């Protein structure tokens, strides 16, 4: 297979995106796009400027964005607080793993959407049910990934540490923790992306504000350009979140995958 430089493949990615945008722009300019099916560029601009100046159903655009981010980050934050310690425990104790993993394995394939009605019943139509839904998804992912990280530590590395004279507690904090950090951070990045993606599903539960609410509500009024603005905003914010976390990961874990 002919190999090209990293820069070549990056240029291909940028090029393809540019072509797609140009195609969209061209079709818009030629007047071939329908505002209420696949809107042209100018309709999106109009919807965006309307959102920025007048907001949507009583709330400014930035409030919609912050509401969604607040829910995603709350659910994600709780998931980190619970999932990482639990994952470490499951990864280091066979007994704990045997007791708790069956439940996690069972929960994992259940689509979060299937839990929406039940969570509404349990936690009401307020913030609780939305945060709980995001928490559930991020938590399952983080716990399993963290446990896998702890289990992947070579047994000989623990033995080597014992024979260097480390106590059990030192091995935990100075060997097990840093050695499983790659799995934990990757788990956090993917859980963050999942949490953000779940906002729309969570905001199907009788939300009055948020990007997911904006999208569903605008759809019922056939305001398709607004729906597109909502989707594009979710996508762009997701991209930024992923990018920032990936950057942190690469800085902290410069040694990863090079052993």
């Amino acid at each position, binding site marked *: 297979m002919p190999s090209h430089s990293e820069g070549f493949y990056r240029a291909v990615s940028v090029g393809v995106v540019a072509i797609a945008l140009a195609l969209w722009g061209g079709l818009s300019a030629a007047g071939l796009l329908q505002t209420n099916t696949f809107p042209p560029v100018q309709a999106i601009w109009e919807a965006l400027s309307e959102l920025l100046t007048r907001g949507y159903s009583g709330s400014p655009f930035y409030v919609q964005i912050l509401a969604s981010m607040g829910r995603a980050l709350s659910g994600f934050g709780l998931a980190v607080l619970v999932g990482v310690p639990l994952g470490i425990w499951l990864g280091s104790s066979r007994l704990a793993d045997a007791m708790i993993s069956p439940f996690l394995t069972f929960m994992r394939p259940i689509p979060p959407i299937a839990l929406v009605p039940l969570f509404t019943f349990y936690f009401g139509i307020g913030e609780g049910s939305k945060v709980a839904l995001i928490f559930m998804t991020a938590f399952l992912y983080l716990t399993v990934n963290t446990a896998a990280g702890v289990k992947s530590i070579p047994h000989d590395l623990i033995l080597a540490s014992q*024979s260097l004279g480390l106590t059990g507690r030192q091995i935990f904090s100075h060997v097990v923790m840093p050695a499983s950090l790659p799995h934990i951070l990757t788990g956090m990045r993917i859980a963050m992306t999942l949490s953000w993606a779940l906002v729309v599903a969570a905001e199907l539960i009788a939300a009055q504000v948020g990007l997911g609410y904006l999208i569903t509500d605008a759809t019922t009024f056939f305001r398709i350009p607004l729906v597109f603005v909502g989707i594009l905003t979710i996508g762009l914010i997701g991209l930024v979140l992923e990018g920032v976390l990936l950057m942190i990961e690469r800085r902290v874990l410069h040694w990863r995958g090079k052993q």
Partner: protein
Amino acid sequence: MTTSRIAALPLTIANVDRRFEGPSGTIQALQDVDIAIAPSEIVSIVGPSGCGKSTLLRMVAGFDQPTSGRILLGGKPITAPGADRGIVFQHPQLYPWLNVLDNVVFGPRMRGVPRDVFMPAAERYIQIVGLQGFERHFPYQLSGGMRQRLQIARVLINEPNILLMDEPFGALDYQTRLEMQKLLLDLCIDIAPTVLFITHDIDEAVFISDRIYVMSARPGRIVEVLDVPLPRPRAFEEATTNELFVKLRLQVLKALKH
């Protein structure tokens, strides 16, 4: 270079048996193993794969206990892993998130040794293994041979009473293996630790050892003990063409086929 010898202690392995309970019954890994190593002696154990030689080394390290028999270091029974025995694994068990210097000082730092004690020691041992100039490199930036040098320095800084080496050069290419054998012999002259060396490379065993124990396939038993009275210091080209070397190497080979 200042020569500072470390407190080498004798190792006694007496009547050691090790049995494992497996799903298909009891597996006798080691049977009636007797080995005695004097302070600063270099002793090799040679045997086929699965003969239990690594099991034996792990028991000396304190990772495992004999089913019966005794293992004594300086007359004291071994009950747990500890920094008094330095173990060198075949695949260097380094901390990939720490650079060379931090890997070397990790043991003393964790055990609460003062910084002004372990820093000069680190400098010395890094120089002994030939890694000076690479203090700020990370393990992934080192070659296989350099990683093994790092693992040896990290163990030596603890000034262990015995070095336990589990096929330490087995994964290295031929040229690097010869360099590492030379390094080991050099530091044995400078620091004079007691060494228990596991290998399946007969040339390596004869070249570095004062004495060789040959083990049989499972159950692992000592089938031959050979003294290696080759003069030291040894150089590979001279030693391997020596008549005595050739004779000893054949004796080990014969014992292995036993």
